[in-house]
């Protein structure tokens, strides 16, 4: 059973999309008169996809729990913003979200592609039709057989966070917009138009760089403030499969600027556009096919679409490779010129190489379980692998970013560069010495800091220079590099000099760490939307006092224990307090607690205790009372050979989740009393407390334990620089995006007035280079 309007919209999208692609093909074969039809069918495709998304959203908002997807991810108690986010809580919904953005972006693409419209739109449609086909097969509109559930399963409590509401939509904008450079590149290869596509595709590549980067940051920040393991990046496959496309997109953006400025290096961008798109498909395959099921803290459930994903991936990779191989010899290559090694062109090429190598290595690590499965034992790499490999790449990237502002495309003499770099080198050295004075000691981190500060200052000077000349709009790249320097310094310092301590805080007993004194005061009960928290008083060495509230609560739906850290941020460091375990404490107890497994006999002081079975009496519950009576049947065999059957009564209150047990005598022990402490029907186990059975009374003495809270306390110096640097980098990207979008629009307008004149044949060498040959500074 399916909710037919949704299914109709999806199939409508599939057919409209196919029709549009076929019509575009005929347009390309010369039927120019069909162009309006191709566009109309594309618009119909968009309308169908948007309608499917709107229908799913409506079902979610209306709590239609008869729809399987609605039932699996939403529930009545969710506030509106979380209810909206259940749209992308599952695989089907997130695929639909991907298509939703893709169909809307396509409206801009066909308007801007001009004479390349037909081939570009055919490829562009193809990149989404596969996903639409998956959605037709694995529909989000499946209806459950009756009866209709009264409430849904609900949204994973970890995802009930504002960051997780906006993270997926932003990320899928990035995924969808990367289809544009890919489509343009394939069309360029097919139609042998080597240069025109760059200007039109740059804004979309930059959009992917921005949105994917922002999504990665949001995911990292969410992990940092919610999960409580103290970091923002865990090298999990899900994280890696968004990082790798981002690295390749960064490479592509650099390559596009290079080709645009130099009118050469065409092969690089054709390869990069294909590779970047392939990494998105490969990542989708890795995380959604279940191949990594045993290797990640995320769980990946195989929906039975693995074959489809492999097919789509293989199809696009083969298409890219075949076209590249076919056209390789006719792609115009610039004649050998005398550009020296120390030139912006070479720095760009090296930077692109580092991005690609880093992306490939991270992808290699992420694919480890898959690769090793072929050779036998599936294996995984430790996170040390990523730490080891990213460090040298980080060195190279900041070094290149630092040199780039004062090196022109045509080259620079080392002497001139040294002269312009002197000031930044002095600033970087001073800041590094300051770090040394503040306690940074490791030589590798100091070296990286020096380079990061150098890169930040060199690029900052370039930004200021541009701003003084009234060309701030063109300083996007430099500004992004300033951010890279700051961010890398933050990553290095907060990682290498974080200090952690695990403390067991007994209630009201102050405990001194290196700099602070922590006192666990009390449990603050939750109420309404506020979660139960632990009140901890922190006194700093300087005599300042503040209170932090790490959260620790049981999710009422799942019974899972949730723990969120408390973070106290100051300008120079974060104090990160992650709750690990709470012990409510217990008074001194007399008795022996024995765990009995169903059907087995446990001997205590010569007497056998056999737990036969449970009997749950739900009569009270049927009457509407919130309790269940559990009867535990036991056989007790004292040493004298007699057998006694005993039934213990235990009442479990569903509202308070507490039990209440009656005491019973123990046959064979004159002073013996026993009662049930806990039952766990899933394990088939019961815990009983025996009193007065031991020869030595000390065996029945359980000392009192004190209420206590175990926390991990971490000091993270300068972690604010990670976020701050990222913002600066994104601001630079945004500036570049605005500038390149304006340029693209101007180019399109200019072309429209010229009535779609075909692009002139490309000369083998670049034309005489005007303004940008000189150093832009």
């Amino acid at each position, binding site marked *: 059973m399916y909710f037919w309007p949704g299914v109709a919209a999806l199939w409508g999208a599939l057919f409209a999309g196919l029709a549009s692609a076929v019509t575009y093909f005929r347009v390309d074969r010369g039927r120019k008169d069909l162009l309006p039809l191709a566009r109309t069918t594309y618009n119909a495709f968009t309308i169908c996809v948007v309608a499917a998304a709107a229908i799913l959203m409506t079902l979610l908002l209306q709590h239609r729990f008869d729809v399987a997807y609605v039932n699996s991810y939403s529930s009545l108690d969710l506030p509106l913003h979380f209810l909206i986010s259940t749209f992308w809580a599952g695989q089907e919904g997130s695929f639909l979200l991907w298509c939703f953005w893709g169909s809307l972006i396509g409206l801009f693409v066909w308007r801007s592609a001009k004479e390349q419209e037909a081939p570009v739109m055919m490829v562009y449609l193809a990149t989404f039709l596969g996903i639409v086909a998956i959605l037709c097969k694995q529909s989000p509109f499946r209806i459950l057989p009756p009866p209709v559930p009264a409430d849904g*399963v609900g949204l994973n409590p970890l995802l009930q966070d504002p960051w997780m509401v906006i993270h997926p939509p932003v990320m899928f904008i990035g995924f969808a917009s990367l289809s544009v450079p890919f489509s343009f590149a394939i069309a360029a290869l097919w139609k042998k138009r080597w240069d025109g596509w760059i200007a039109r595709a740059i804004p979309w590549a930059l959009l992917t760089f921005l949105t994917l980067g922002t999504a990665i940051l949001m995911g990292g920040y969410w992990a940092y403030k919610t999960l409580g393991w103290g970091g923002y990046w865990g090298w999990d496959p899900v994280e890696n499969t968004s990082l790798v496309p981002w690295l390749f997109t960064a490479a592509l953006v650099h390559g596009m600027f290079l080709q645009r400025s130099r009118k050469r290096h065409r092969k690089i961008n054709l390869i990069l556009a294909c590779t970047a798109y392939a990494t998105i498909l490969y990542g989708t395959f890795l995380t959604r096919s279940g191949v990594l099921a045993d290797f990640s803290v995320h769980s990946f459930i195989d929906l039975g679409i693995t074959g489809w994903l492999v097919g789509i991936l293989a199809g696009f990779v083969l298409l890219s490779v075949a076209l590249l191989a076919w056209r390789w010899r006719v792609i115009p290559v610039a004649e050998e010129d005398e550009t020296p090694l120390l030139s912006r062109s070479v720095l760009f090429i*090296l930077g692109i190489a580092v991005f690609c190598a880093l992306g*490939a290595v991270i992808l*290699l690590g992420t694919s480890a379980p898959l690769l090793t499965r072929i050779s036998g*034992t599936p294996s*995984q790499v430790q996170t040390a*692998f990523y730490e080891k490999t990213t460090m040298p790449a980080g060195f190279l990237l900041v070094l290149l970013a630092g040199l780039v502002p004062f090196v022109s495309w045509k080259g620079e003499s080392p002497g001139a560069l040294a002269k312009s770099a002197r000031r930044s080198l002095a600033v970087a050295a001073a800041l590094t010495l300051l770090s040394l004075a503040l306690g940074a000691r490791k030589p590798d981190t100091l070296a990286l800091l020096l380079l990061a500060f150098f890169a930040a200052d060199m690029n900052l000077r370039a930004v200021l220079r541009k701003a003084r000349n009234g060309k701030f709009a063109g300083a996007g790249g430099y500004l992004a590099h300033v951010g890279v320097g700051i961010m890398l310094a933050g990553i290095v310092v907060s990682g290498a000099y974080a200090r952690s*301590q*695990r403390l067991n805080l007994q209630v009201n007993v102050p405990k001194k760490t290196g700099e602070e004194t922590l006192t666990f005061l009390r449990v603050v009960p939750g109420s309404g939307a506020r979660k139960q928290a632990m009140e901890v008083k922190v006194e700093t060495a300087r005599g300042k006092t503040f209170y932090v509230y790490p959260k620790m609560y049981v999710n009422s739906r799942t019974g899972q224990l949730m723990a969120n850290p408390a973070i106290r941020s100051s300008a120079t460091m974060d104090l990160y307090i992650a709750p690990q375990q709470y012990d409510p404490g217990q008074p001194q107890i007399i008795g022996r607690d024995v765990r009995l497994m169903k059907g087995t006999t446990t001997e205590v002081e010569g007497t056998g205790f056999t737990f036969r079975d449970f009997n749950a009496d739900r009569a009270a519950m049927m009457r509407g009372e919130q309790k269940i009576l559990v009867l535990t049947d036991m056989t007790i065999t004292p040493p004298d050979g007699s057998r006694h059957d005993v039934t213990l009564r235990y009442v479990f209150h569903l509202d308070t989740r507490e039990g209440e047990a009656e005491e019973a005598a123990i046959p064979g022990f004159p002073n013996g009393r026993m009662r049930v402490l806990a039952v766990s029907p899933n394990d088939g186990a019961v815990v009983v407390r025996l009193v007065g059975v031991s020869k030595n009374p000390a065996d029945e003495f359980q000392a009192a334990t004190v209420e206590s809270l175990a926390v991990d306390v971490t000091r993270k110096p300068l972690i604010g620089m990670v976020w701050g640097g990222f913002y600066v980098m994104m601001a630079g990207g945004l500036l570049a995006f605005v500038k390149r979008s304006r340029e693209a629009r101007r180019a399109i307008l200019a072309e429209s007035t010229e009535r779609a004149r075909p692009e002139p044949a490309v000369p083998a060498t670049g034309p005489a280079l005007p303004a940008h040959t000189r150093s832009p500074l």
Partner: protein
Amino acid sequence: MKKGYWIAAALTLAFIGFGLTAFQKTLTPYLSFDEAKKARGVVQVMGGLDKASDRYDESRGELSFELIDPSGRRMPVVYRGIKPANFKDAISIVAIGRYREGRIDAEKLLVKCPSKYQGAEVEKAYAAAPPGMKS
């Protein structure tokens, strides 16, 4: 200019070569209990929790338990750290660490619990306290 490309290619290859060696060094294979006993270096084993076997030593902050594989073989595991929440509900546990003195000295546990959610949190990772960490 050609030289630039050559350097870039050499750099990429060198880096990927470096990545491959790091890959081999940090690979932690999923091994059966018998293989784990012979292996050197970090390995990972997976098994069900023997629910009668787990002990938590408060004073040393050490959790010890036994894993059982489908053919009934057992592997003792020690994990220095706080007992993971919902430990008892685990369907399966992955222990990542070194085999020493008849048991796995786990650096990390992946505890897989039954969950009705498709997505994160069916499985949760727990890292042992780093050696330098004071208790």
